[in-house]
């Protein structure tokens, strides 16, 4: 509490109404030493010499502050009588007598008096005092101008406002008002929004904001604290997988586990051999799957979340390794093992072009963000860039990629990402023509790029997943463990609302889901009867996840709740 010398005995708590307080002010202000910062003797409980009363279990909430912000909230809500009653009953005044007086005088437009009172509040910061004085004098100035008392206005400006030496620019504006009074009206109105009443309340707002929070409790302080708490609850909710959620103050927010896909909705059987790769289109309307049977299947995701076969793309002479969707989802690229890259039309299922390089097998592929080019990794470790017609535009030779490597391109087309060494990933900046490396201690088996291109999820041989931040400071920011990987190439991905989750396949035939921020393993989903090689989370529907397995099937996972559509009665919030 303030450093008030307790030379006088504490005043008895006097039950007075706010109106009567004005009469007591003079008495009080004589007794209270000017240097007190919170000159609030009337409120001091008898027992509190030094010890502060607290509320709450942890003893961190000061009772006085707590009551004051409640009082403030009551007044803000319009419950003036209740607010006053609270002040009376608790004996804790919202404002110190000086501040209450100031507010009163401001209300009554008594500028001279309010200036005097301002200095009695005992603000320690001189600048604040000056600025507040400026505001008050400004009002005085405007009032004088209104009365057309130009001389007095000028006098105020010269002898009271200018010596403050703050807000010099504004002073000039005020000076111009004297010369041109009509402009002044415009100025006053423009700076203070509309009618006199409005301008007055805005000025009060400014004044209140200027004074330190302990002297003048900020408006809506209680609401702000509650909103902060809700933010914390929401961040802590690991199952939070939905945009529309209601928060209740009665119970801590905690989404149930049933917000994350965990239930097999469909088993898609179309492949005749292991399914190695699958991915949803950007718009979430299609799913493409690639298999050791040399075939790529395009599935359509219907409104009802039903997934139906649309096309079977044949042509590759080798198992299909990877698929990439064009930026507008109208075309697909598929790559065969050390073979060729094929471009397909999603609507017709036709093969539009075959990309190959004499004597060199292709091992990966990616679309250029503008949809006008193709990037492909070669068996000879180089990376080539072609235009849609197959003309080679650029080629990066040397060890840029390995026999098994994913390929990713950032959405701005600037960076190409590829595994270039057993334990290193290359971040190749096309424009700046320079390269950075992500280096691991273990062998890297695959990776996945986040939607915002700021993070890379790296799969390691030792069954760990590392989340790397690749923007600015390149470093590992999270680890995920639990899934099994001994012999195969297993893929993982980002997904869910705001990509708050990490999903992965596993050799134990389950799908694994972690909470991205905390690294906590949330779910393991059994169902497949073979290793799960790849997972893809629908970018447009955080409740849909697809998995590809050695058991030749694809599973579509959804919420374990019949009413999961969620916009209806069940609600999405509290369990």
């Amino acid at each position, binding site marked *: 509490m303030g450093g008030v010398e307790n030379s006088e005995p504490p005043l008895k708590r006097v039950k007075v109404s706010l109106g009567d307080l004005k009469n007591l002010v003079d008495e009080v202000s004589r007794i209270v030493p000017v240097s007190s910062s919170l000159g609030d003797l009337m409120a001091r409980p008898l027992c509190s010499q030094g010890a502060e009363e607290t509320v709450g279990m942890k003893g961190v909430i000061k009772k006085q502050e707590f009551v004051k912000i409640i009082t403030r909230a009551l007044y803000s809500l319009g419950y003036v009588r209740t607010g006053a009653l609270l002040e009376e009953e608790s004996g804790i005044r919202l404002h110190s007598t000086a501040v209450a007086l100031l507010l009163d005088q401001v209300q009554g437009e008594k500028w001279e008096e309010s200036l005097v009172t301002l200095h009695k509040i005992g603000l320690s910061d001189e600048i604040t005092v000056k600025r507040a004085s400026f505001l008050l004098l400004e009002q005085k100035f405007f009032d004088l101008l209104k009365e057309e008392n130009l001389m007095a206005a000028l006098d105020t400006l010269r002898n009271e406002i200018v010596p403050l030496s703050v807000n010099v620019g504004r002073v000039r504006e005020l000076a111009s008002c004297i010369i041109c009074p009509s402009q002044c009206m415009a100025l006053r109105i423009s700076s203070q929004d509309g009618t006199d009443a409005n301008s007055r309340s805005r000025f009060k707002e400014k004044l209140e904001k200027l004074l330190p929070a302990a002297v003048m409790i900020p408006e809506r302080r209680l609401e702000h604290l509650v909103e902060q708490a809700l933010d914390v609850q929401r961040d802590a909710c690991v199952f939070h997988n939905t945009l529309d959620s209601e928060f209740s103050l009665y119970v801590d927010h905690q989404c149930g586990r049933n917000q994350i896909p965990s239930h097999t909705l469909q088993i898609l059987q179309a492949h005749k051999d292991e399914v190695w790769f699958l991915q949803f289109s950007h718009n979430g309307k299609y799913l493409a799957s690639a298999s050791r049977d040399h075939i790529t299947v395009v599935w359509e995701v219907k409104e009802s979340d039903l997934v139906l076969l649309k096309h079977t793309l044949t042509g590759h002479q080798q198992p299909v390794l990877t698929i990439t969707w064009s930026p507008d989802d109208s075309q697909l690229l598929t790559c065969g093992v050390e073979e060729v890259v094929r471009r397909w039309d999603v609507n017709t299922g036709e093969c539009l072009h075959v990309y190959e390089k004499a004597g060199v097998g292709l091992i990966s592929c990616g679309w250029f963000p503008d949809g006008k080019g193709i990037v492909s990794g070669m068996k000879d470790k180089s990376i080539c860039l072609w235009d849609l017609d197959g003309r080679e535009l650029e080629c990066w030779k040397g060890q840029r990629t390995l026999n098994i490597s994913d390929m990713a391109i950032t959405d701005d087309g600037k960076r190409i990402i590829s595994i270039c060494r057993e334990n290193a990933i290359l971040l190749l900046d096309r424009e700046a023509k320079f390269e950075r490396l992500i280096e691991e201690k273990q*062998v890297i088996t695959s990776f996945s790029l986040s939607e915002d291109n700021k993070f890379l999820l790296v799969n390691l041989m030792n069954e760990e997943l590392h989340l790397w931040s690749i923007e600015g400071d390149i470093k590992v920011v999270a680890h995920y463990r639990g899934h099994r990987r001994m*012999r*195969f*190439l297993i893929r993982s991905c980002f997904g869910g609302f705001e990509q708050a989750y990490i999903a992965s396949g596993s050799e134990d035939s389950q799908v694994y889901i972690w909470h991205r921020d905390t690294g906590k393993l949330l779910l393991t989903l059994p169902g497949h009867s*073979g290793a799960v090689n790849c997972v893809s989370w629908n970018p447009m529907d955080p409740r849909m996840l697809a998995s590809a397995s050695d058991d030749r099937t694809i599973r579509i996972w959804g919420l374990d709740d019949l009413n999961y559509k969620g916009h209806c009665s069940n609600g999405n919030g509290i369990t």
Partner: protein
Amino acid sequence: MCFHEHVHGNQEKMGRIFSVNLEGKIYSCKHCRTHVALMDDIVSKSFHCRHGKAYLFSKVVNVTVGTKEERMMMTGLHTVADIFCVRCGSIVGWTYETAHQKDQKYKEGKSVLERYKISGPDGSNYWASHEAHVGGSDAEDV
């Protein structure tokens, strides 16, 4: 080739095997040609096993490790685990987890590949010696 196909066909559920490619003088799995080690990483060529010669390597790749067990070898008790080719699953040798005698500690973390199970850098294969050790599990020499 025939044998290779036979092995390949047998693998019902295999997934996309992840294997690394080595550069240099490479020893590979005799059955499926998956790279397993580099000549530069040979520590000793004087090891023996039931099928004949074996080499001690400081590093091997593309193998899966079996269960650990205590084995009594000519040089004493060791904790070892068999190692298998990641692609075709055939056994290629064993790896030393722990050596219980001080002078054998240098083997820890290293692996032995049986010459009979791997193809050499020049593609050469090794045929089981007729003078194989009588009776006994894989032994070795220092």
